């Protein structure tokens, strides 16, 4: 492939994207949290795990911007470092689901017929259930760990991606370049992955971004109900879950900042997805 022209295309797309204010905001937010996840432990003023029992539940102050939690740990530091687990689990789950869903969607869309029919049934069955419910069932049976959470999310999101890819592939399947490839006796692998895949990448990219948002949503929700990321992680959903009983007592800072963190990250990702989606429809 001629990388130069392809790159030029990408650069052009990026330039157009960066003109969208909401896309820019999304990128800034997400990059901020990614930086927190990567370098958080080196950036924060306090060790997010270090207790200071005699200074617990202090309201936000100059020393502790976001106050302290019940063990006297610095909430600000915990919120910053709290990005780490969710930004590991959710993206890996998304990548897994994208790979799986793409392979599935390519197969369904390209071969059609009985294969498509059979796989579609499975896909529909999985899609009939909300992810959180499927995850609850699976995690109860398999036991909770970051790995199982990833796998469960990957499996329950793959059908959505498969469906997107399938319909994109069906459209591509109607294009004559596929017939042309068959007419030079390309093997199926080449047709699927070299001919068709590059052309369905944009919708996959959008769907994967949207899924990443949902993955974060789901991981946070699972953590909140106790089936996701496990203590002692400073994970946001987990922190909210263990602290929300305190808000009535006025200790709102133990919950509100974590909530804002989750909200901002998911909104950021969706702003990016929105931007890319808008680009495709221009």
């Amino acid at each position: 492939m001629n990388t130069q022209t392809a790159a030029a295309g990408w650069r052009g797309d990026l330039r157009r994207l960066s003109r969208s204010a909401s896309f820019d905001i999304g990128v800034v937010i997400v990059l901020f949290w990614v930086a927190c996840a990567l370098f958080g432990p080196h950036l924060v003023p306090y060790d997010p795990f270090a207790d200071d029992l005699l200074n617990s539940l202090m309201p936000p102050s100059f020393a502790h911007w976001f106050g302290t939690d019940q063990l006297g740990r610095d909430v600000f530091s915990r919120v910053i470092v709290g990005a780490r687990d969710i930004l590991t689990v959710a993206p890996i789950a998304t990548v897994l689901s994208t790979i799986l869903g793409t392979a599935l969607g390519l197969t369904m869309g390209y071969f059609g017929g009985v294969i498509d029919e059979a796989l579609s049934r499975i896909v529909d069955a999985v899609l009939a259930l909300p992810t959180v419910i499927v995850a609850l069932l699976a995690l109860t049976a398999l036991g909770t760990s970051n790995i199982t959470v990833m796998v469960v999310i990957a499996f329950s999101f793959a059908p959505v991606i498969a469906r997107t890819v399938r319909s994109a592939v069906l459209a591509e399947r109607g294009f004559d370049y596929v017939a042309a490839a068959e007419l030079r006796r390309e093997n199926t692998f080449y047709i699927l992955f070299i001919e068709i895949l590059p052309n369905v990448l944009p919708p996959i990219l959008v769907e994967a971004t949207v899924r990443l948002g949902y993955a974060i949503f789901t991981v946070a929700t699972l953590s909140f109900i106790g089936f996701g990321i496990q203590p002692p992680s400073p994970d946001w959903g987990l922190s909210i879950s263990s602290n929300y009983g305190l808000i009535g007592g006025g200790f709102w800072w133990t919950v509100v900042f974590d909530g804002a963190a989750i909200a901002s990250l998911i909104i950021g990702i969706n702003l990016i997805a929105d931007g890319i989606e808008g680009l495709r429809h221009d």
Partner: protein
Amino acid sequence: MTINHKLLDILRRGRNEHENHLIDGVVREAVSRREFLRYGSVLGLSAPLLGGISGALGFGLAPVAARAGTPGGTIRFGHIVPAGAINPVTIADPGGVTILSQFAEALVLSAPDLSAVPLLAESWAPNNDGTVWTFKLRQNVKFHNGKLMTADDVVATFDRLADPAVGSNALSALSGMLSKGGTRKVDDYTVEFHLDAANGNFPYAVSTDNYNAVIVPAEMPDDFEATMIGTGPFKLEKYTPKVGASFVRNPDYWGAAPLPDRIEITFYDDYQPQILALQAGEIDIIQQVPVLQAVGLLADPTFNIITTPSSAHHQVHMRTDMEPFKDKRVRRAIALTLDRPKFVQGLLRGKAQIGNDSPFMPAYPSTDSSVAQREMNIAEAKQLMEAAGMAGGFKTTLTTEKYLEIPDYAVLIQNAVKEIGGDITLNIMDQGAYYGDAVPGKSPWLDSEMGITDYGHRGVPNVFLQAPLSSTGTWNSAHFANAEYDTLVKGYIASLDLESQRASAGKIQTLLLDETPVIFSYFYDFLTVTKAGVTGVVATAMGHIMLAQASL
């Protein structure tokens, strides 16, 4: 202290050997007044008698908060949804106990101060070697179905609980102590318990501590949940599984007429929603709240906190048969890094008693309080590590359950041992996973190098001494095997008099401090929170909540 010897002599008449021994103890001041009252109650000295003895000894029973409540009204309280069907035979969780305590009663009340108070039994006494205990039952007690409670009901109740084929949850408290057939009717209002082995604390086994041991009619229906026939101050009005229950005043109650017209109970899956509901004014009482959850309520004048001391605690076990904990000096060093007063203040907001690395918490009368309290001493800890050849520190994994403040406690331990070079990785699992199949090899609880396990309240330390620490103990996650310890415990359990119990206890405490297979750094209280103005609420550490004398 002025002792009225004349009065005392009168009172001593008819007392058996153990009772007189106890009285001797208190006279000699070997037994404190508080302990006297508590242990005296176990031996079956009635409250008037105890009061009399106390009076004779120059200290009176603390007067019961005598402010009389106003009758009427509906009390709404929330608690954790019962884990299973409401059946006294099978109930195994605080949620179920709370429901039980509304409508059913045991022979003996293990009161919040750990004293044994007569309920359906009027009095009790052991034989000389403590193998047979005779209970006199209260007369004219009616079940909610109108029948009188007699010895037949008591015998049936205990035979059911002690029958392995029925599989009652009470088996864990009764096995090795009371078998099926061991409960015998003497007359309609007298029952004898013939024990498998001598036991000086038997009344606790038929008290509210053994919460399954509520007296229900001999003919217990299969769908007990539909009727909930007991002798309690309230009768079932409506029960909806998972949702809640309501009870109404029992007009035929044997004791003082219950004050509230109705009790409305709402079940919650978790503590947070309960607390919020209390704050929003939707319920009046929540109970058994872990301290950390209730932090928001502690300083709030619109709420009233009832603190119930308990022997509930979190055991930190270290595998005595595995590195890096094979050397007891390492175990001791770790115990020395913990700042217990700080834990109690910070983690538990002062609502706990400091532990001394043995099950003997200060509140137990048999505890030898002369054994020195272990305090944080990093220098000594470092020396011990050096002596053990581990000055470079160690690495280990602390496996535990996600329950109450245990994860936070784990973090505190993780941080504390850093002082002596300990590098602990936390592995916090959900409860089911942690306990696994509860047999070695299939249970992180019993297999992990280091772990933290929650133990519920017990009125006496016997269970804590045996199952988790004796070499044949089924919950021995520290894999602690020490012949001397086993012998000491056997002696402790069999002894009927307080002084010899305390002597054994002292040795056990010293031994455990030296070996430190398990760290007991605190015993946490249970909190019951009520709306300000609610009075007369009695709560036990077991989960009972008694509202007969409560008023809004």
